[in-house]
């Protein structure tokens, strides 16, 4: 952040062009992670490319089977959108609990998903709702997108344009937020899809970031009730362990959050 060049493109093409022509550029969406990271000198890009003035990244729309949200749409916009609240209330609920009101006015869907913070909320929804990530060059399935902590399938200079969420029959998200940061200590998104399939994704707890929990999915497929999860044991060998909580504590939280998500739907 010692020497920084700011760019403000108004088209995806110009944004990519700025990126290509810069030595070590970073896309700047809402900046609620990037700017604090830069202030701590954990990131030191030569250039930042502000994405907030690109019309192609804005807007919320829906088709028969999916809800489409522009990468530049803020958490506050998702939380307040009558369309999202009607079609996918679980996603509006998730967005309404990210950070705090001021952070939600700046932070964006695309920024959160591209950053893939292991404690971010959106990745759980993207995975459980079978979303597709549309970039400037291709379409990536959620299953192939999250590749590890802060790692995604995005190439350098590849930009998320929008994310299409499959509209489920019913879905819910429950998280236990860190009381200081509001990041998830454990967050569980559960969706029952129109084909009868169940997807359950866990954020905040995995040492490789967001993951699906197949045992809980199978249990819910057999019995769509919170009680179906009572006897599941969560393996804590690949869970985060830090000052906020041990792996064993997070393993228990995952189960409790999954049960709370189920209870909120029934």
């Amino acid at each position, binding site marked *: *952040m*010692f*020497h*920084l*060049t*700011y760019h*403000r493109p108004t088209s995806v093409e110009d944004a990519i062009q700025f990126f290509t022509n810069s030595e070590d550029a970073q896309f*700047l969406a809402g*900046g*609620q992670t990037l*700017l*604090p990271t830069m*202030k701590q000198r954990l990131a030191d890009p030569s250039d*930042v490319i*502000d994405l*907030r003035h690109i019309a192609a990244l804005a807007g919320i729309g829906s088709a028969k089977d999916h809800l489409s949200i522009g990468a530049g749409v803020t958490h*506050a916009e998702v939380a307040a959108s009558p369309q999202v609240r009607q079609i996918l209330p679980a996603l509006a609920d998730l967005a309404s609990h990210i*950070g*705090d*009101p*001021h*952070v939600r*006015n*700046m932070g964006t869907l695309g920024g959160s998903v591209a950053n893939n913070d292991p404690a971010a909320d959106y990745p759980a929804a993207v995975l459980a709702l079978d979303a597709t990530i549309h970039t400037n060059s291709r379409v990536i399935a959620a299953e192939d997108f999250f590749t590890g902590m802060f790692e995604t399938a995005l190439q350098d200079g590849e930009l998320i344009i929008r994310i299409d969420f499959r509209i489920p029959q019913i879905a819910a998200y429950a998280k236990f937020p860190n009381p*200081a*940061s*509001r990041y998830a200590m454990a967050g569980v998104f559960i969706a029952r899809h129109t084909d009868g399939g169940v997807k359950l994704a866990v954020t905040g707890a995995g040492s490789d970031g967001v993951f699906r929990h197949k045992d809980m999915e199978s249990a819910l497929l057999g019995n769509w009730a919170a009680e179906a999860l009572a006897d599941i044991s969560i393996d804590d060998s690949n869970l985060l362990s830090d000052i906020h909580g041990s792996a064993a504590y997070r393993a228990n939280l995952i189960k409790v959050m999954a049960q709370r998500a189920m209870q909120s739907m029934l």
Partner: protein
Amino acid sequence: MIKVSMTVNGGAVSHTVEDRTLLVDYIRDHLRLTGTHIGCDTSQCGACVISFNGKAIKSCTMLAAQADGAEIMTIEGLADGDQLHPVQAAFKEHHGLQCGFCTPGMIIAATDMIKRYGAALDEPTIRTELEGNICRCTGYQNIVKSIKAAAEDMTRSEKPSVTSSV
């Protein structure tokens, strides 16, 4: 260096600043509007909250360059001359501050939530909405009371016909 122009508290301003300049530093050091505070500088405390194009944001987590062309309101722009804004008046009346350091951010956050919720703003909602503003004097009780009183005052004055018919 980059030239930034914006409207601050109703007046046009324009300066050439370093690209890396944070909006809060621009407001305090270039515009000399020191009512906007820097508390934690890690996006958590809310002392730097200002209104940016009508929405409350943390000005320590935005570059001045990002605000080029925007409309900004800081705590200094809230009162109408000597007439306090209803939220300011409520904080004064209900002792909604002790040391006062968090107050500018609290008041901007309060005006933002009153705008969004109007008469529906109840106490649990106020407490939830304040999660991005920290008061280290632990004076939340009176802050909540002040915001509730301001919300009632402002939503009442929005409907003068109701009060005049009573």
